[in-house]
């Protein structure tokens, strides 16, 4: 036993003899139509992956333009109207077309059926329909953009959006309305699939935590998104025929819109973050070779977040003249919803304890997630605390907080997941050292971009400002510099993942020695996923079972 223990768990087949399996979901059928009319959840996931990546870079381009404008205090790069359109499009695209579908529609779509031992989702055609709805929503968004843009902010606040703007509000609202249905259908599909299609022996508490968190997010999608749809329909009606629901001169209440909007849009942040938390559970377990510490607590904390997440929406409105009592109740509930997230963070940290840890790229992203999400979550407590919220809300503090959770948290988790499952999805490995570099660049760039914004926020710099007082410039320059670094960090994976499609090392079935059912089948998987439906007689993250199974395989083959 004198050989040094390797610092990686990666175990690739002999590259001189290994090949991509002859029959798999990618080459099962050929031609564009075979993709556009497919019912295969894996192909739909890939369609989603391509489309959300496209929209991510469009949204990212707007972010770059915003940061470029804010390099100087004067409004000198573009006109105010154009700047307002920039941040509106950045918000709409990033939230509705990237963050909401990011993990569920790509990784969830691809892996939830496989993880529970099913051949496909419960409703393959509805799954395809949801991609088409997404694309129609995306195309309409781009149409609104090409026709001249929209400048309501992604929040569509009335009466600004209904009475005071002449831009393409209805087109953008329709786009979100339609994209919303795509999200409802995805959620519905996941719920039914997880309830009805688990393989024999796959009990609820044997499911990987990724399934739990996506299940919780699905419940939010199905129950929350219709309220957004209603709010948007009312905005459109108010604009077109002036029904007066939100118009105080007609007896309406402009605050009602905010209630409806945040009733969806607060749970929406959990729709965005929960699936990412699922990814982190998988990654941390795999790279520390340990069952997730307190599996049940982590599973139920997802459910708790989904449940409490519906009862905190008015914390977006503390300064808007809601009654003192409701402010108190919503602040208290906001404090409660922070607890399950804290539980998750500590459970992940203790998963590392007594593990056998290696530091492949997905793990680096997961560590990044843990750090940035902790800051993002704790700064959320600042905003949930009533008196503090008065000073901090509507400033760059809230911008920084939201980006720490959504970009520092969710995007890190998405990238962790993409790297983690890339070998399974494509059959090939990404280049390890380059991707580690990208993870580090992203982390540094992110902090440089958003940490100064906390300080700016406490100074009082309001969000959505095209121009700002000159004493805020130094921090804004730092932030823009960070955004440049961050941009490099996001371009790199696009390039090397593309490269790896052709030149990456052949991954084999289970490069990470992971326990999930998806790792026990070939990479890329067969169209029908499993040759025979698996019978599950072991817990999730059972590394001893895996070891035993691998020993047996060696003996049988040998």
């Amino acid at each position, binding site marked *: 036993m004198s050989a040094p223990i390797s610092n990686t768990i990666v175990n690739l087949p002999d590259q001189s003899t290994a090949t991509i399996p002859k029959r798999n979901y990618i080459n099962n059928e050929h031609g564009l139509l075979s993709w556009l009319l497919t019912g295969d959840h894996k192909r739909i996931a890939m369609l989603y992956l391509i489309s959300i990546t496209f929209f991510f870079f469009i949204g990212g381009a707007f972010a770059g333009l915003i940061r470029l404008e804010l390099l100087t205090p004067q409004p000198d790069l573009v006109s105010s109207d154009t700047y307002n359109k920039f941040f509106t499009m950045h918000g709409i695209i990033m939230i509705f077309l990237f963050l909401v579908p990011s993990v569920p529609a790509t990784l969830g779509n691809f892996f939830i059926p496989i993880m529970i031992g099913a051949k496909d989702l419960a409703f393959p055609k509805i799954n395809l329909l949801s991609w088409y709805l997404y694309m129609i929503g995306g195309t309409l968004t781009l149409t609104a953009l090409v026709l001249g843009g929209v400048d309501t902010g992604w*929040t569509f606040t009335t009466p600004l959006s209904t009475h005071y703007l002449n831009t393409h509000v209805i087109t953008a609202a329709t786009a979100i309305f339609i994209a919303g249905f795509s999200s409802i259908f995805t959620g519905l599909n996941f719920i039914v699939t997880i309830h009805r299609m688990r393989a024999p022996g796959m009990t609820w508490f044997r499911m990987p935590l990724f399934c739990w968190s996506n299940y919780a997010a699905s419940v939010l999608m199905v129950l929350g998104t219709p309220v957004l749809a209603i709010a948007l329909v009312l905005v459109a009606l108010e604009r077109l025929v002036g029904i007066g629901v939100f118009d105080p001169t007609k007896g309406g209440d402009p605050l009602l819109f905010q209630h409806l909007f945040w009733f969806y849009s607060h749970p929406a942040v959990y729709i965005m973050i929960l699936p990412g938390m699922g990814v982190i559970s998988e990654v941390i377990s795999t790279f520390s070779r340990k069952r997730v510490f307190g599996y049940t607590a982590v599973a139920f904390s997802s459910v708790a977040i989904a449940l409490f997440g519906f009862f905190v929406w008015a914390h977006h409105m503390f300064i808007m003249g809601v009654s003192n009592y409701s402010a108190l109740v919503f602040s*208290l509930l906001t404090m409660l919803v922070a607890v399950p997230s804290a539980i998750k963070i500590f459970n992940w940290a203790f998963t590392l304890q007594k593990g056998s840890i290696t530091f492949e790229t997905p793990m680096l992203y997961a560590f990044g997630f843990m750090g940035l999400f902790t800051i993002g979550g704790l700064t959320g407590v600042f905003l949930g605390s009533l008196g503090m919220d*008065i000073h901090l809300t509507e400033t760059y503090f809230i911008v920084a907080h939201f980006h720490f959770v959504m970009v520092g948290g969710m995007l890190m988790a998405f990238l962790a997941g993409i790297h983690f499952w890339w070998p399974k999805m494509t059959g090939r490995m990404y280049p390890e050292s380059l991707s580690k570099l990208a993870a580090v660049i992203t982390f540094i760039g992110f902090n440089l971009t958003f940490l100064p914004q906390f300080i700016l926020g406490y100074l009082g710099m309001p969000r959505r400002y095209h121009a700002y007082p000159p004493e805020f410039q130094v921090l804004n320059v730092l932030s823009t510099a960070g955004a440049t670094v961050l941009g490099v960090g996001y371009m790199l994976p696009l390039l090397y993942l593309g490269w790896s499609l052709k030149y990456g090392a052949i991954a084999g079935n289970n490069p990470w020695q992971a326990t999930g059912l998806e790792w026990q089948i070939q990479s890329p998987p067969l169209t029908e996923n499993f040759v025979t439906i698996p019978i599950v007689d072991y817990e999730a993250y059972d590394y001893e079972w895996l070891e035993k199974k691998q020993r047996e395989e060696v003996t049988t083959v040998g």
Partner: protein
Amino acid sequence: MGISPVLWQFLVKWLHNSALFPAEASTIAPYTDALYFFLIAMTVVGMFLVVVLVFVFSLKYRREKSPVATQVEGSTLLEATWTIIPLAIFLVTFVWGALLYFRIYDPPANAMNIYVVGKQWMWKAEHPGGQHEINALHVPAGRPVQLTMISQDVFHSFSIPDFRVKREVIPGRYTTVWFQATTPGSYHIFCTQYCGTQHSMMIGEVTVLTPEDYDKWTKQSTSGMSLAQNGERLFASMGCNACHSGTAAARGPSLAGVYGSRLTLANGGQVLVNDAYLRDAILNPSQHVTAGFAPIMPTYQGQISEDGLIDLVEFIKNMQSNYRVQQTQMTGETDQAAPTTPGEGTTETVKP
């Protein structure tokens, strides 16, 4: 070394003029900052814990050192610890934040009132004494000031970061915020709610003056007509005095001394008469009929600007008797509604 002196000077000046922490210029600011530092400490400790755990475990249990993982199910004790301790900290934050919230939003009874109207894209401040300002606000140091604010169009938000106060300015509804400035000087006013094209131009300066300077300013910059006087003129010219004359035969209730009283409505409800009630009753009278009167008042929706409403509210607020109403009614009938010079002290805000 090779850095040009011009560039060096520029950098020094640029960094020197940059802000890192806002001034504490109100009595509330130290309370807000105390909570802020507590929350920062919480974040730093939380972050430190997570980083230390990840670091130590990563070093100690990396594969080279710990080739085989020991499976652990979990630990109820540990999990209870990290449920209860964060919960306790968050609850402390909740209570502290709630106390601060009420401190910031509950004005002291002796606060002087200034009206603020927000519109795309400016702030109009209207002092009861007849001083009108745009994108500027003059206040005395050491005296509590309450702002009663309303928007003429979309949502705005009135923020003075150096005072740590902010409140949404909403169409169709009065909102209030108060502060007591401590240090004379000039501070930013921002609109923090996105309100359209020139959102970032909807900024102004609040100038805090010493009490003496403030008195000087008040005398120099008055338009000569107090808000209540404007309101009186409007009251006559809109014909309000025809019904609200306070005579026995009047078709509308007497408004003298009504402000601050509890009123029984025709539908049996009880209301406290405050600024918001008066405004609503003018715009939407059929919902606010005083018990004993017929619902005959027409709506004034769309006929009076927010400024006009403020004048009327201010007039009714300060109305102690119906004498002058009846007087103007006489002259009003001959179409000469010129107000007489008000007596001493009528421009003072009278608190019920």
